[in-house]
């Protein structure tokens, strides 16, 4: 044990890591720990530095400052191929001249695993990703989803100490993405894989990760267990990225303020946070309305708060200038500390 302050001595530990490209700082003093068998997602808009951070951990991008440690050992100077990490790209990057099995066994061959051992492991992994018996297929003949499954099998085959996933599902269409996200979570759990998962898709991050970090402009703004991040974002920037569009002082709602929110706290509202309800305690004036999936979206003006979004259930559809009563849905409302 090296016993650096706060270092757990196991898993991944980043301390004030910075990566710059000329004058631009892509990753700005990010500190982060991942426990063994934990899955952490980094969420952020494109260009926020999350992929660069991932590449720095893999050893593909040199760091300008800070340290990357695995199990307490500094990885500075350890080349990519000696780190024992796996990396899954957005578009698979399968070797086009090898068949499916040839791709999956590549890391095992690099590790000097004997033929019989490789074959057994390849079979095991193809079964894990649901592609049993496809080992002899040419990779070009596979669909996008299948290619990504092969890429996952390839990166898991050498039993990486840490799996890095760079938007692995972004290139797939929506239905497939949702199904694969669930599969991916299941596979990572079953194999107890330690993983760092980078994405710009909230649903994916919350589906797959134990903890979610939000990045912007190279900085890690907040990292917390999924539920906590969702309900209690650290500030308006994080909340905004998570889809909270309006911010109102909790005190403005008076008695309607959700439990757990102090009078000085700020509430983050989404369009679903306020719902039209004949018994609701809040009164608003409809400014505009539009159809949405399964109901009507409203823009209402509330005295002391301003103009915010709201939802009306399918049956009751108030027109413009109508007065409506609203109630707050605490489950989709964020509570932020006083600004």
């Amino acid at each position, binding site marked *: 044990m090296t016993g650096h302050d706060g270092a757990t001595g196991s898993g991944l530990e980043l301390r004030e890591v910075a990566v710059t490209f*000329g004058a631009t700082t892509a990753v700005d003093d990010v500190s982060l720990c991942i426990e063994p068998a934990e899955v952490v997602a980094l969420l952020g808009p494109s260009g926020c530095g999350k992929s660069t951070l991932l590449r720095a951990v*893999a050893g*593909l*991008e*040199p760091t300008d400052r800070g340290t990357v440690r695995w199990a307490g050992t500094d990885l500075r*100077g350890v*080349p*990519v*191929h*000696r*780190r*024992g*990490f*796996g*990396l899954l*790209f957005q578009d698979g*990057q399968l*070797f*086009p*001249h090898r068949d499916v099995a040839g791709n999956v066994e*590549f*890391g095992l061959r*690099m*590790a000097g695993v004997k033929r019989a051992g490789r074959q057994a492991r390849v079979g095991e992994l193809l079964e894990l990703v649901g592609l049993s018996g496809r080992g002899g297929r040419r990779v070009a003949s596979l669909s996008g989803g299948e290619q990504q499954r092969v890429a996952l099998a*390839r*990166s898991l085959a*050498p039993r990486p100490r840490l799996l*890095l996933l760079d938007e692995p599902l972004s290139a797939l269409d929506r239905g497939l993405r949702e199904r694969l996200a669930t599969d991916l979570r299941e596979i990572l759990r079953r194999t107890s894989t330690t993983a760092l998962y980078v994405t710009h898709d909230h649903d994916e991050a919350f589906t797959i990760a134990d903890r979610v970090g939000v990045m912007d402009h190279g900085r890690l703004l907040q990292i917390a267990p999924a539920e906590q991040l969702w309900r209690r974002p650290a500030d308006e920037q994080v909340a905004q990225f998570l889809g909270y569009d309006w911010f109102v002082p909790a005190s403005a709602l008076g008695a309607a303020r959700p439990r757990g929110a102090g009078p000085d706290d700020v509430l983050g509202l989404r369009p679903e946070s306020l719902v039209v309800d004949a018994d609701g305690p809040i009164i608003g004036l409809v400014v505009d309305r539009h159809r949405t999936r399964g109901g009507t979206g409203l823009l209402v003006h509330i005295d002391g708060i301003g103009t915010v979004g709201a939802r009306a259930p399918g049956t009751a559809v108030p027109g413009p200038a109508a007065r409506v009563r609203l109630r707050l849905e605490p489950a989709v409302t964020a509570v932020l500390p006083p600004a």
Partner: protein
Amino acid sequence: MDRHRRRVGVALAGLVPMGFLGVFFAWPVASILARGLLVDGALDLGGFAEVFDSDRTWRIIGQTLAQSVAGTTLAVLLGVPGAYVLYRCRFPGRAVVRALVTVPFVLPTVVVGVAFRSLLVDGGALAFLDADGTFAAVVAALVFFNYAVVVRTVGAMWAHLDPRAEQAARALGASPARAFREVTLPALTPAIASAASLVFLFCATAFGTVLVLGGPAYGTVETEIWIQTTQFLDLRTAAVLSTVQLAVVTLSLTVSAWSRRRRETALRVQSDAETARPLRRADLPAVLVTAAVVLALLMAPLASLLAGSLRTPDGWGLHNFANLATSGQRSTAEPGLGVGLEVSVWQAALNSLRIAVDATWIAMVVGVLVCVLVTRRPHRPGARRALSVFDAVFMLPLGVSAVTVGFGFLITLDRPPLDLRSSVVLVPIAQAVVAVPLVIRTLLPVLRSIDERLREAAAVLGAGPARVFTAVDLPVLGRSLGLAVGFAFAVSLGEFGATSFLARPDRPTLPVVIFRLIGRPGADNLGMALAASVVLAAMTTLVIGLAERFRVHSAGAEV
């Protein structure tokens, strides 16, 4: 430790090609410049004033430019319809016609010259035109040679041009001609510009063809350098002319590189779908032009060459080919000229093959090392800048004329520290210098097309730098290596510009022997020259044909 060893490896890999290029290209070329510009170590432009004062110089520069402009214009005007017919239309036998069109480009320049002459001299099919030794004959040969460049470069782009843009224009009310002019032509412009600048370069530096066809009254900068050096022994004038040639070449290379970049950008927006459709009535003009070019311009000289090689004083036969085992006809009337070739033509062919083997492996070693280095993506900005300079430097020999290279060797490598004049390695090295840019141009696009993340994927899975190369780069490169070997071998077989300066009298190559034979009186010598040209053409076509089997079909591939 590990990192240190890797740096040393990279440095060594860089030193080999750098050293090669430095000694065998930069030094000779710099020496030429120095000879033209320096007198007793001081800058003196007197040589320029003298050379440019002469009417002969201006006539030669004028002829060079006129032949380049005429050759390029005609090649483009004829080549664009050809590209359309051969790449945008579908008809039985298209693959055969495409291959036929390519044959002239890979033929050695001396062979092209001899083939055209066989058509135009007394007894040739077109003797009535009285065009032997004229400007028109030279331009026709240049178009013959470069038609394929335009057809293949423009065709490759046209084949992948999304037809919907033109269809949209038609739907908006444009006539077919208008849609072509306003939509298709602008889209093809980068390819046309790229092909035209390349053709201009080839026309401006054409040597063997002009020397054989042009006759005594006709000359270009390229042939003039050769004449000044070998006939008048005026090295200063030759150096000044080489400097002029360098300037012309650098200019057209810059235009070529610029238009190639534009074309690469344009290529990204194309579809991979098959766009060719069956011939239609409206295609008739393009089909007629292409048929005329293929039959009259491309096939006629080749047929004439073949026929001439089979014609003997007493009818048809293989007499000329049988003579290839001899060293030529001795003239009793002119004893001075009657000296034989010193070697038999078959011996010269064997020399050519041996030299080509050496030139090819030298060019491949240097070319592959350059490509591997240039496609590295170092993290340090300084190293990245150094690499881009390295990249540009290795494209230079592409444009520098072979005659300049040969002349440069002659004046630098003939005395200590490096006296190679009597060494047998000089010719292969000179030919390798000429072939290296072609090797690089064949391999580099393939290596560049490999997604860097594919190499990263291999590295993450535990492959060290050497393993990454063998596991990712090499398999992708595989087929192109065969193509590059074929190109290098064919270039070396047909190389005449540099070799004509450097080949020792007792070890001539096949092109050199052909040139000597046509310079001699006697029907047997001409017949032998034709037969030897057929042999050389067959060897080159065979090599290229084998290499073409390795060609990876890609939109970016050219000539």
